Structure formats: C-alpha cells, structure tokens
C-alpha cells in the first residue's frame, strides 16, 4: 500500500516537473509561432497583426496564467488547438496514436516472446546455433541503424522485386514491416538478456539439486528456472518501452507512416507550441501506464518483491 502511494506520488511529480520544463523550454524558442504564422500566410508584420494573432493564440497572458490554463485544460481533456492548422490536437493524436502504439507494442511483444525461446536454447547449448545467432543479432542491431535496414528492405521488396507497395494503398504493409523491424531490433539484445539470466540460474543450488536428482536439464530449466528469467526480461522490457516513441520515429519517417512521431516532426518544423507540449505529456502518461502494468505483473509473478 505504502509502495503504491509512493509510486503514484513519484509519477505525479514527474508529470508536473516535465510539464513545467517543456512549457518553459518551448517559450525559450528563438522564433515565435506568431511570426511563423504571419509569414506562412504572407501577412505583413504590423503591430496590429501581431497583436491580433498573439491574442488569438492566447499568448498575451502572463506565463503562469498560460501554464495554469494549459495544464488545467489538459487534465480536463481539452488539449487545445494546433497553432498552425487550428485542428483539435486531441482528435489528431487519437487518429495517429494507434499507428505508433501498434509498431511499438507488437514489436516489443513479439521480440520478448521469441527472445525467451532463443535465449533458452542459447543458454542450454553454449556456442551452439542459437547462442551465435543471438550475439550476431545483438551486434547487428546495435551497429546498423534501423533506418538503413528499412531503406534496404524498401529497396529490395518494392523496387527490385516489385512485390510489396509500401507507399501506396492503405499502408498496411508499411505498418507490418515497421513492426517487424522493431521486433527484429529488440530481439538480439533481449535474447542476450534471457540467455545471461538463464546462465546465472543454472549455477544456483536448486537447479543443480534438481539436475543431480535425475530430472532432465531442459525440463528443470524450463519449468523451474524460468520465473526469475521472466522477471528479468520484464524489467528490461520496461526500459524498452520508451523506445516505442523514440525509436519508432525514425521508422515512421522512413516508411512515412502517419503516426504521432511523424506528426511531431512536421509540427516542429512549424514551431507548433501546443503539439510539442502535448506530445511530451502523452509520452509521460504512456510510460506511467507501462510502468504501472508491468510492475503489477512483476508483483504478481515475483513473490520476493512483496
């Protein structure tokens, strides 16, 4: 109970610190969105125009008032309007979030599932095929940026073989391929984590005891040693979920998938304050839910944590 409260308090503080930080940073920006807006419509920068647009964007209030209004509305569910297009930000995000979450979530879940088995085989057969495969994959994924891999895939499958159309149609192929690339990139490192965790368990007395009694090695490892390994895997995956937004940006960009990160990149080019601020808060809320759910899962599996 006490831990639940301190968890919540920590996240509430993180949320507010992040919101103040991003609010302040955005105001430090060298070019103001008012100027951008005027120049994008080829309007002269007269006093009247500036005053009118500033008022319309709600930028004429003092900073604390602006902050209070913004955060209050955000918490009430009114995320404001994009300064550039005047579309409702909430609708935009709700439209685009499924793409990003689909890429990240399927990518990480598929990778976590497969990595458990690859890591298991790699731990059993040291120096075997799975062991080599997992270390090659992990070196590959850390030394070749995912966008190069994406470009090469686009080149082979759609330019050379003409098998898949990534940029026309409903974009399902692009989405699936981006998810698979995400999975592929997480697979190597996660399977190394699983492998090393299994190797650690192998040396523990309960495993040695069970093996000495004559149980088969595969079974002992799979049935008895898997729980601590799964706990280790989950705590590694928690950190990877930040990747859902960070890492998928490059892939969304390479496949031009209309996800939130792609939206962020295009809003940044117009210095759209509101979208930027909302985006960071959404990342924080997403991470809050990831931590909440996965910590509950860990709590349920791992008796030692109670």
């Amino acid at each position, binding site marked *: 109970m006490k831990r639940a409260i301190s968890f919540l308090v920590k996240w509430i503080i993180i949320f507010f610190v992040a919101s103040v930080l991003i609010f302040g940073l955005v105001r430090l920006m060298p070019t103001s969105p008012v100027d951008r807006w005027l120049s994008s419509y080829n309007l002269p920068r007269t006093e009247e125009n500036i005053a009118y647009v500033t008022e319309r964007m709600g930028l004429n209030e003092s900073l604390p008032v602006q902050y209070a209004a913004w955060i209050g509305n955000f918490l009430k569910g009114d995320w404001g309007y994009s300064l550039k297009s005047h579309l409702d930000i909430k609708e935009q995000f709700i439209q685009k979030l499924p793409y990003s979450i689909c890429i990240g979530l399927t990518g990480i879940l598929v990778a976590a599932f497969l990595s458990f088995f690859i890591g298991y085989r790699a731990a059993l057969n040291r120096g075997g095929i799975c062991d080599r495969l997992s270390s090659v994959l992990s070196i590959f994924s850390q030394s070749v940026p995912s966008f*190069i891999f994406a*470009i090469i895939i686009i080149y082979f499958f759609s330019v050379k073989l003409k098998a898949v159309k990534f940029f026309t149609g409903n974009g399902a192929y692009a989405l699936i391929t981006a998810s698979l690339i995400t999975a592929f990139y997480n697979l190597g490192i996660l399977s190394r984590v699983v492998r090393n965790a299994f190797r650690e368990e192998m040396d523990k007395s309960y495993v*040695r005891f069970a093996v000495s009694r004559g149980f088969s090695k595969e079974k002992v490892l799979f049935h008895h040693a898997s729980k601590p390994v799964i706990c280790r895997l989950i705590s590694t995956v928690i950190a990877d979920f930040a990747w859902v937004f960070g890492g998928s940006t490059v892939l969304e960009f390479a496949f031009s998938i209309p996800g939130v990160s792609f939206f962020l990149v295009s809003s*940044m080019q117009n210095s759209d304050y509101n979208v930027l601020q909302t985006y960071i808060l959404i990342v924080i809320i997403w991470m809050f839910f990831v931590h909440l759910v996965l910590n509950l899962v860990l709590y349920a599996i791992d008796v030692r944590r109670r």
Partner: protein
Amino acid sequence: MKRKIIITAIFALFILFLLFAPRKNILKTDVLHTFEGSSAEHWMGTDNLGRDVWSLLVAGGVRTLEVVFLSMAISFFAGTALGMIAAFWGGIIRSVIQFLADFTLVVPSFIMAMVFSALFGFSPLTAGVIFGVGNMGEYVNQSFDLAYGLKKQEFIDAEKVVGLGKIPILIFHVVPNIYRQLLVFLGNKAGNVTVQYAGLAFIGLGTDITNPDWGTLLYQYRAYLTSYPMLVIYPAAAIAILTILFHLMFDSRSGAEEAVTLFD
C-alpha cells in the same frame, strides 16, 4: 591480451584517421562531375552535387565523434559523481538525485534530442548535451548501487574513523573500486549514441546540407540506392565500423571465461 592490444590499436588509428585525414572543401560542388566512381582525385567518388564523398564522410565522422565524446563525458563523469554523492550523503540529496535519474530514464532521450534540436537548432553541441544527460540516469543508478555496497565495507569505516573527509574518500578510494564496472557500459552507450545521432540527422530537423552528418548523407542519398548503391553503403559502413569498434573496445567480458555449469 593480444586481442585487446590489436583492438585498441585499430580503434586509436580509426579515431586519429577521422580527425586528421586529408579532406577537400566539402562546400565545393561540381556539376560536371557528378556520380563519379573512385579515382585518385576523389577516393570514394563524387555525389549528386559533385562533392567529394570521402571528405563528406570524414567531416561527418568528426561531428559524430564530437557528439559521442561530449555525451559520454557528461553521462560518465556527472552520472558517476551524482550516484556516489547520493550513496554517501543520503537523505534529501539522495531522493532528489534518484528522482532526476528516474526522470531521465522515463523521458526518451531521442525525443528530447528532437525537441531540443527543433527549438535551438541542430548541432553536435546540443545533441551531445542531450544524449549525455539522457544517458546519465543509468550511470547514476549503477554507481549508486556500487558505491552503496562499498559504503558498508570496513575500510571505508576505518577511513572515516581516521578522520578523512567524504570527498577524499570518494575520489581516492571509491572511484578506483567502481570505475571498471562502469566502463563496460561506456562502449555500449557510445555505440548507441552514434546510431541515435545518425537517426536524428536522418530525420533532419534543421540540418543544413553544408554540415554533413552520416545520417544526413544517408537521407540525401537514399534515392540513389538503385542507381549508385555505393553512396549509401559508404556512410552505412562508417556507422557500423565505428559502433562495432566502440563495442569491442570497452567490452572487457569478451576475453573472460564464463563459469562452467552442470549443463555444459
């Protein structure tokens, strides 16, 4: 041991090479000589604007190294120092530092780097600082755990009894005991920063074409993959070589024997 020396030598040569290799003016375009193959004048040929690819790569490499060294210095030194301070001082200082560490772990550094480069312009300086601060959290946690374990050891108690201050104890007795474990991290993180920086440049927020990065080059040349594949292969290979060297350089486990269990 021999392997270690060879890797270190290759690593040092590669870095020195990037820093001091001869390069031509990367701003000079030559529309009459575009997409040329390798020649004595242009070692890696020329690109779509007739610029010398070799010089572009070297210039991008220098910028990448700036980012990597800046961010590693920040996350390694500041992270280790903050972690040790949290472990030895405790109380409110510890809570604040651990909160900051959690904070940097929650907010993805890539996103922060994107936001910052949109706000303040894209340069190795901003990217280096953001990646450095973003990766700091893990160093803080790691060095906190290591230093906290040491704090309970007898030799530290003895030094306290003798009357040594906390700062000399940290610098002369804690740091030598923990830095090895922290260095293993470093290669991994340096590789990741190289790749992330390339990704950031690939997205190209506010990049200008006169300051080439490996990511920017890949973005510009991706359209020529069909006709001139070498233009994409060179920067991709440069990224791969640098990251693999980082991994090999700081990976101290590679030579160590793993414990043999009943299963082998």
